[in-house]
């Protein structure tokens, strides 16, 4: 306000200052701003206002006293962070979080692209539609049901366990979820099954907007199907791929806790316990609010860092980025 007043003294500058331009724009696109208002309010009310609650990570939060009146934690409020860094589980949680999410990323990120490319090559319309429906159906099953099914399939008498046991890969008398080495594969493969079809849709829509003339030109130049894919299709949908990748990298540290909680058991915590499940146990089960908030905040900071870095790198390498 002060700024705009001061600048207002010099009319030509006011036209170009931020506030001046905003004012002008507000007048010009009144209705657009009006329509934007609810969205802005939504973000303020549900995304920004609750953020002040994050300060409980630096306090010893006592619900009945409220957030502001709760006493500050020791070590200048950093007690819970230090506790976490010194915890015996710190290394394991970070390792598991990274292992699970990076493996998951490596497998489930390219898979929908490949599926989309393959579907794109299917000529038979009805067959293509059927395939698509089949692959994205699991997306509509709730996570709880999916995990219930997975648990049954890999139980000691489940069909997957029995199938693998016949091939001599696993012990047919044991549930696969009781073996710590199988957790990551189970998690990743079931995730692939659940998400591949749905995630392919976005690439399919990107593929449908590729200019057909480009293919024509490529064919004239003598490119075969494979070369067309490499030189026409992929570059055309690169922007979509990069965008999806950056978004995915942002959630590397945010392995979905619902699925892990539904699948894991204390016997395999060694490979399955991740930061978010730890936060869940600490915060919701043990009511250790401040500690859980500190761990969660730490997690978010790393996520933020990862998104920014991923964006920078892709911008450098491909000249494309989110911002």
């Amino acid at each position: 306000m002060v700024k705009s007043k001061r600048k207002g003294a010099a009319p030509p500058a006011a036209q170009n200052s931020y506030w001046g331009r905003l004012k002008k724009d507000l007048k010009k696109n009144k209705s657009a701003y009006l329509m934007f208002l609810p969205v802005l309010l939504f973000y303020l009310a549900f995304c920004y206002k609750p953020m002040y609650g994050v300060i409980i990570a630096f306090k010893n939060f006592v619900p009945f006293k409220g957030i502001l009146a709760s006493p500050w934690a020791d070590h200048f409020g950093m007690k819970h962070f230090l506790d976490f860094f010194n915890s015996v589980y710190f290394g394991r949680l970070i390792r598991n979080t990274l292992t699970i999410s990076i493996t998951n990323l490596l497998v489930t990120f390219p898979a929908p692209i490949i599926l989309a490319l393959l579907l794109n090559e299917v000529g038979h319309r009805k067959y293509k539609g059927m395939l698509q429906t089949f692959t994205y159906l699991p997306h509509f099953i709730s996570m709880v049901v999916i995990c219930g099914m997975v648990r049954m399939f890999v139980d000691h008498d489940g069909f997957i366990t029995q199938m693998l046991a016949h091939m001599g890969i696993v012990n047919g008398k044991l549930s696969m979820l009781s073996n710590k080495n199988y957790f990551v594969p189970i998690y990743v493969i079931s995730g692939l099954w659940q998400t591949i079809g749905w995630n392919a849709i976005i690439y399919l829509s990107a593929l449908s907007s590729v200019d057909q003339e480009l293919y024509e030109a490529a064919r004239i130049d003598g490119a075969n199907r494979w070369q067309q894919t490499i030189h026409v299709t992929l570059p055309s949908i690169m922007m979509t791929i990069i965008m999806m990748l950056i978004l995915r990298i942002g959630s590397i540290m945010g392995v979905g806790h619902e699925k892990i909680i539904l699948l894991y058991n204390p016997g395999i915590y060694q490979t399955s316990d991740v930061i978010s499940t730890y936060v869940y146990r600490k915060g919701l089960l043990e009511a250790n609010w401040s500690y859980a908030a500190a761990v969660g905040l730490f997690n978010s900071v790393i996520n933020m860092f990862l998104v920014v870095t991923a964006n920078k790198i892709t911008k450098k390498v491909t000249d494309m980025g989110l911002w």
Partner: protein
Amino acid sequence: MGKKQSIRKGISLLAAGALVAGMLSGCGGKEDAAKTDVAAKSKEGSQSSESSSSKLEKVTYPVKDAGKFTYGMKLAGAWSDRYDSFDALPIGQELETRTGFDMDMVHVEGNQAMNLLLASGELPDVLAYNFQAFYNGGEEKAVQDGLIYPMSEDFVKENAPDYWKAISENPDILKQVKTSDGNIYGFAYIIGDEEAKGGYGLTLRDDWCEELGLDLPETADEFYDMLVAFKEKKGAEVPFCLKSDTLIEMLQRGIVTSPFGLVCADNYVDDGKVVIGYEQPEFKDVLSWMNKLYEEGLLDPNFSTIDDETVKANMLTGKAGASVGAVGGFMGNLLSTNKDVADYSLAGIKNLVSNKGDTPLYGHYNTDVVGIVTAITNSCKNPEDVAKFLNYGYTDEGHMLYNYGIEGKTYDMKDDDLKFSDLVLNNPDGLTPQQVTAEYAMSYTNGPFVSDSKYSYNEDERQTVAKKRFIDNDAKKYKLPRVTITAEDTGEYSSLVSELTTYRDEMIVKFVRGEESLDQYDNYVDTLKSMGVDRVKEILQGAVDEYNKR
């Protein structure tokens, strides 16, 4: 409800009486009527000066101008499929008519939801919750956090005289319902009889034992031999079936630890000294025995992933022949489900020992005050009134209502013997006795009353025997009392304990499954030390000393 007079009348009478006697001091005197004042006074003279009254004013029900209060409790599976809230149940309605209060229920689904409710800071006036188990730091901390309204002795004497009677009769109980600064934190669930404090142990197919010519096992070796026989001769796929939580619970409750010279895998007290059971060298022997059962396929190989339903199903169908559980919820449930199966029988056995005829060192044994406490919160505007409501469970009528339901509906008294009615035993709507009593009484959970298990509608003779066997041990000697951790240690203590138990539980599973060799036991103990197990012991020791001094 002896006296048909209101509280106010009573108090004015008492004031008059006390004035005449010239003895009114503060809010002390609470006499029934002026007549008895003199007698009581002379009695008081010989007692210490702080117990200002030994005779208490009775609360008359229904309480006049009782009003409304909000009551937070967990939704109980025992009735939640048929009713939405506690005040819609026959017992809830009866409580409202009898006490004159209007309950406004706030139900939450589980402990998680309860923790969220607490975090919201918007508390109901009354809260029934197992603070000891699920609130960080227990009742002591809840009082400190400003959640629970701490009741002074005088407050309780004045507003909940029957509760005061129930807790003051036994100095041990009084210790258990107090915080370290001497206030009473809430209305406790008190276990009324010794046998009800146990009721948890090994449960096995005694019909198989009989058929195979085996005595009920007493030692670890006999138990092992029995499992082998079950597997080889009875074709039990998983002779000893239990899930990992139960396995850890079994070790903590010392069900199978005595043969190896270990009291239990939990914290216990030996001669006033706190001992951490799960870091003792003997625990290694217990684990290697469990590992042996696992390796030989006697213990269910899938114990870490199965659930309660699977355990039950295995026990019912003969896939398993032995498990661990409670005498009612587990054994009773199995027996009643399979009551029409001709060759099916279960027995509860004494906890295992090293030599035949020994008394087990430990077993499941509850403190007098256990589980859910019904506390008045600081949101409550009229704690005096609400205390009168909560007092009802400790009166004679309330005792019967909370334990057995409504006379003439769920039971009838004949010659001092309680007979359950047809409503319970042969319910016209096809409900089980458990379901009916859950609607008319509160015996399905812990509440503001003294439990009473004198009469039972369906207790099998075998359960009665099992109860006696389950309690036949020295647990009383070693049991850690219901201590309170001081406020300054609470945070440290709970975070240490939660990390330690996570680690311990994980390692127990690994040792039993042989994923971690028992040669690594020393490493395990070293890790416990580095995680601060000694500090836990120190804090507990302080709490035990403080408790003994109360």
